[in-house]
């Protein structure tokens, strides 16, 4: 840690990991509800569990992004953070708001929560991933703006590198496109059209800028490769991201009532979306192969390489699999989507967060890398989580193919629920893979408390 104020990143990373654990626990509940339908009913109905699962994912990712910003920006700008105090205040506001939101989901019926929180003044709730009550949404905007203000001023008073610039662009984009979550017209088609301006332009747009900047930063630190080379790669990757990804939004506009030319625009451009992810993989391996130093943090290197590979597989390959309109006609809204969603989100965003945390946390704890034993544990957790996520994806893909075959093809299609009974085996297997993932997560947490062996202290 080069600058004292980078320390504010630590609580953000800890909160991120805590919420990650919550996300996985609720994922296990839902996975079990898929096979034993009335599990925990009516205490936690499936839709509530899902809201908690997906919202925790979003919130822990935001915590990790902000932690990454607070850690990376002072180091890149070569100056102390503009206001560490503001960063800590915002941490507590965000944590309390997030916790209250989750408690709200679990403690009162959703309709009551909507009434209590002013949804009748401005109705924004009840749309996938944007279920948060109005005060939470406003809170997200306030916290994001305070964060952006803080890091933007830090960059303005210090060195301006391409990495901080790209990170700032991504984070500003995140805040701006979130504003579409406040637009909820009563026309469902328009609602859906602009809902994607938040959801797609986040995960297949500006978030990839944040991902790229975080990965580039860690790669510079652990490989010692020349900044010029790494930043050139970064620009090429994010150029391809936006060139393909913006019009690629069209792959969501095939069947929601939008004009049919979107089938062409969406298919062609989103078919190119794997390119930046493939480049990310090549980039990560290339930089590690050309490394000019042996950084003692092997675990962080593993996470960085893993991010490249898994984001390419999850977002790139599994995305391509169902992105062409004639294919998507059959796969849209099935377990294929769930399969893609799981590996893409884990491979791209969960893993880049864990990469950043893996690199920065030891620094924040006053060492350059954890002891060998702690790193071994962390690498075990990497493999357990990654491999079980591959299996979760494969099982859901199998379930999805079978579902499409039985429910949507052939002359005698089955009903939705009859089809679900037919694919039950794969849901069981998915749940088992989920339990292995959880074991990996426990090992991950444990690695932070491993006392065995000597930590590395050299700079």
């Amino acid at each position, binding site marked *: 840690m080069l600058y004292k104020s980078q320390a504010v990143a630590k609580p953000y990373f800890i909160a991120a990991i805590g919420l990650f654990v919550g996300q996985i626990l609720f994922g296990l509940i839902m996975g079990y509800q898929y096979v034993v339908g009335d599990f925990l009913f009516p205490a936690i109905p499936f*839709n509530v569990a899902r809201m908690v699962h997906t919202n925790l994912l979003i919130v822990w990712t935001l915590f990790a992004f902000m932690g990454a910003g607070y850690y990376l920006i002072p180091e890149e700008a070569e100056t102390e953070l503009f206001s560490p105090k503001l960063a800590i205040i915002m941490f507590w506001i965000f944590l309390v708001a997030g916790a209250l939101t989750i408690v709200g989901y679990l403690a009162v019926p959703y309709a009551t929560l909507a009434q209590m929180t002013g949804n009748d003044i401005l109705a924004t709730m009840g749309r996938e991933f944007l279920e948060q009550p109005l005060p939470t949404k406003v809170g997200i905007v306030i916290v994001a703006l305070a964060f952006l203000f803080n890091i933007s001023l830090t960059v303005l008073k210090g060195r301006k590198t391409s990495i901080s610039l790209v990170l700032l662009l991504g984070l500003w984009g995140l805040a701006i496109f979130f504003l579409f979550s406040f637009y909820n017209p009563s*026309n469902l088609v328009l609602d859906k059209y602009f809902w994607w301006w938040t959801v797609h332009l986040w995960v297949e747009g500006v978030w990839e800028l944040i991902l790229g900047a975080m990965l580039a930063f860690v790669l510079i630190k652990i490989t010692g490769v020349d900044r*010029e080379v790494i930043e050139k790669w970064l620009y090429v990757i994010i150029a391809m991201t936006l060139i393909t990804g913006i019009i690629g939004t069209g792959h969501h506009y095939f069947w929601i*009532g939008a004009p049919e030319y979107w089938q062409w625009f969406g298919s062609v451009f989103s078919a190119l979306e794997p390119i930046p992810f493939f480049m990310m993989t090549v980039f990560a391996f290339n930089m590690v192969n050309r490394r000019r130093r042996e950084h003692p943090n092997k675990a962080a290197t593993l996470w960085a390489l893993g991010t490249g590979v898994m984001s390419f597989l999850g977002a790139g390959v599994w995305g391509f699999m169902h992105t062409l309109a004639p294919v998507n006609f059959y796969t849209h809204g099935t377990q294929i989507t769930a399969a893609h969603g799981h590996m893409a989100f884990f491979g791209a965003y969960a893993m880049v967060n864990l990469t950043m945390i893996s690199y920065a946390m030891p620094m924040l704890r006053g060492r350059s890398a954890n002891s060998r034993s702690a790193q071994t544990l962390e690498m075990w957790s990497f493999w357990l989580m990654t491999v079980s996520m591959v299996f979760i994806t494969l099982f859901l893909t199998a379930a999805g193919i079978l579902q499409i075959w039985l429910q949507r093809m052939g002359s005698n299609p089955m009903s939705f629920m009859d089809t679900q009974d037919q694919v039950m085996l794969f849901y069981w297997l998915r749940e088992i893979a989920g339990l292995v993932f959880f074991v990996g997560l426990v090992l991950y947490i444990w690695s932070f408390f491993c006392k065995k062996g000597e930590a590395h202290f050299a700079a």
Partner: protein
Amino acid sequence: MSETFTKAMARNIFYGGAVFFFLLFIALTFDTVQSLPKRDHRENITDSVVRGKHIWETRDCVGCHTILGEGAYFAPELGNVYKRRGGEFIKAWIKSQPTGAPGRRQMPQFNLTDQQLDDLVSFLKWTSEINTSNWPPNIEG
């Protein structure tokens, strides 16, 4: 990457590409919004449909069901449920939940009034009439 291809060139491709394709996206969006009325039949969005969408949202229906293929995959597609089941069945179904069948997926009881049930059905009826380019592939959704 080769030495002749510089960081400045990469940066220019990024800014140029991002701006160009975002402007193209805005232009396509403008055209889409212009042509939507022919496909979404918005002249049929009555007050009841508007209230129905509000019921749909405040009960978080999308947390289990899909609508036009978007949502959760735990329960049936409802974009075409009006055509599959009809309004009376939908109302009776919602009123009779949960089934309580052991081990089966359960839908909560939302205690909707008759007016609210009618509104929800209006919303689902209007939704089933959106021109979705013939999606879903068959009536099962």
